[in-house]
């Protein structure tokens, strides 16, 4: 991982040892973090049936049900957090969320349309992903046509998302109870469907998104300085904007196809880490991805455990816990 720049004084045995110990101190911290993550994953695998049991002695069928759920939680947490970190830089707004570029609205629209037509199974995640990406690209196209810079993109995203939400409400208003129930489950973000669709498609989409986004870290930092200043640093603003939105759509679309609309995490995690760690966007995106994945894993574990046998949709638990947690941090940060 990249070390942040420090002022180095003249090299001497004392400073060399200090530098070495700082480096190994950092390495030690990373090792601890990795081990802690692995422990948490192992613990999460053991949660189920209202109690905890060792993942070692699990029945094959239980294992087939649980590990996709864990993997989904990690992937969704990672995808939404990285996307959120990138969009907060793009829109220069700490309240930016992956849903701002139309991904949630598009996914909801896709899901509700296929549910209303009685399609189920693989059709639903596919519809979520397609809806996400199509609406996102639509917003980009309209923005290219109408112009308006960054503010224009924000406004368009907001308006078109709201429009999608209105159509979703309309369709639900006219549907029967079963459709309504399935749709509500999807829209509140649930990982109960994990494992029914092979994870590889989502993984491919997220990998593509990551490969595009991570190298853009420095350019995102430059974008946060304002458009003209970013141009003076040789950044091609229009191109970066397009790439970031497309990559975010790939990440968020995959996340939504796996677990429905999960809000909050894309906004909260990068903000938290920016306050605590700071630093360049690439580093922030990597950290957000990692900690976002672990965070959602923990929350999902709690969601499965607290009201067993009811599987509380993770989006609800996230909002219930995440909200007060964020406020607490905000108050602590102010003091």
């Amino acid at each position, binding site marked *: 991982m990249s070390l942040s720049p420090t002022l180095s004084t003249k090299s001497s045995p004392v400073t060399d040892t200090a530098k070495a110990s700082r480096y190994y101190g950092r390495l030690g911290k990373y090792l601890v973090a990795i081990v802690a993550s692995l422990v948490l994953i192992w613990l999460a695998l053991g949660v189920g049936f209202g109690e905890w049991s060792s993942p070692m002695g699990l029945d094959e069928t239980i294992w087939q049900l649980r590990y996709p759920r864990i993997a989904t939680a990690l992937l969704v947490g990672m995808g939404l957090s990285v996307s959120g970190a990138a969009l907060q830089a793009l829109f220069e707004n700490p309240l930016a969320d992956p849903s701002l570029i139309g991904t949630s609205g598009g996914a909801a629209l896709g899901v509700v349309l296929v549910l209303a037509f009685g399609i189920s199974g693989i059709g639903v995640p596919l519809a979520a992903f397609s809806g996400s990406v199509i609406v996102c690209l639509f917003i980009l196209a309209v923005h290219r046509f109408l112009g308006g810079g960054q503010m224009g993109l924000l406004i368009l995203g907001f308006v078109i998302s709201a429009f999608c939400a209105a159509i979703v409400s309309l369709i639900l208003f006219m549907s029967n109870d079963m459709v309504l129930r399935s749709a509500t489950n999807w829209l509140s973000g649930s990982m109960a469907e994990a494992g029914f669709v092979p994870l590889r498609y989502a993984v491919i989409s997220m990998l593509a998104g990551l490969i595009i986004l991570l190298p853009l870290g420095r350019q995102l*930092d430059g974008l946060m300085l304002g458009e003209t200043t970013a141009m*003076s640093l040789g950044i091609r603003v229009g191109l970066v904007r397009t790439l970031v939105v497309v990559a975010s759509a790939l990440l968020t679309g995959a996340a939504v196809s796996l677990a429905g609309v999960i809000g909050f995490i894309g906004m909260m995690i990068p903000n938290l880490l920016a306050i605590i760690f700071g630093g360049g966007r690439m580093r922030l995106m990597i950290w957000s991805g990692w900690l976002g994945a672990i965070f959602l894993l923990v929350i999902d574990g709690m969601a499965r455990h607290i009201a067993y046998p009811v599987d509380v949709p993770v989006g609800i638990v996230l909002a219930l816990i995440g909200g007060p947690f964020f406020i607490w941090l905000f108050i602590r940060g102010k003091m």
Partner: protein
Amino acid sequence: MLSLFSPFSVVLTTPMTLLTDRPNQDLATFPNPVKQDPTLFTLDQVCIATAHKTLVEVSHLTIPKQRLVTFIGPNGAGKSTLLHAMLNQNIGVGLTVSGTITATMSTATSPSLKTPSEQLIRQGKIAWVGQHERFELPLTVLEYALLGVSPMLSWYKQPSPTHVKKAAALLDDFELTPLTGSRVQTLSGGEKQRLAIVRALMQDTEILMFDEPTNHLDIRHQRFLLGYLQQLVREQQKSIVVVLHDLTHSYRYSDEVILMNRGQIVAQGAPHEVMTNEQLSLVYETDIQAYDTEGGRVFM
């Protein structure tokens, strides 16, 4: 491989040095047979307008190279608008820019190649500091200053220790060293402005453009900055364009002054030619008198 060429270059230059009566003359400093164009920007028939009114109208303007050029004029004269248009013709929602703004680039093959000026900023050849720079970043002062070298680095590379040393030296020059590890969001207005200037200087470009860089600075820092810019022009042959409000400073530090009013260029030339009492009083619509003191000419 390169070492093979150095004896060659010695062989080539030696006869030339023998022929001249300045034995230590380097081949590179021989007078350029083609005269380099001294203009930096050329504006022709430029008109910047919104749907309702014309903001700036310039029939012809040339800005020279390797000088400290200052734009002065009352509020709303169009100085910032003009500067922004020189950098980026799509400067905002609802603004149309017509006319041509070209920059004269000198390359080895073509000494006066004219390109649209906005290409220069996209190529990272102009360092820019606007009136309202953004500081809502979770970066420390040092990291922010090092953003200036990001055009020179590939995406995975971190700034080298040389860059860090240079940043530290500049931060020291502008008295920001005690704040090196602080988050930029915690700085005062003047500190933020000095930091933005450090970032621009880190870009190490030939051309620098600043929009009211002295707004939040106290008089000591204002003098330091303008003296520093003057030094950059004299010693490193940089071209600097600045928008200023303070007339005394403008007179003292500029090589060339451009006076604007109501979107038009009123006068352009050396400070003593342009900044006459009558002209200034007319443009600023208030009585302005110049007084010569031991410290220089003061405008009140």
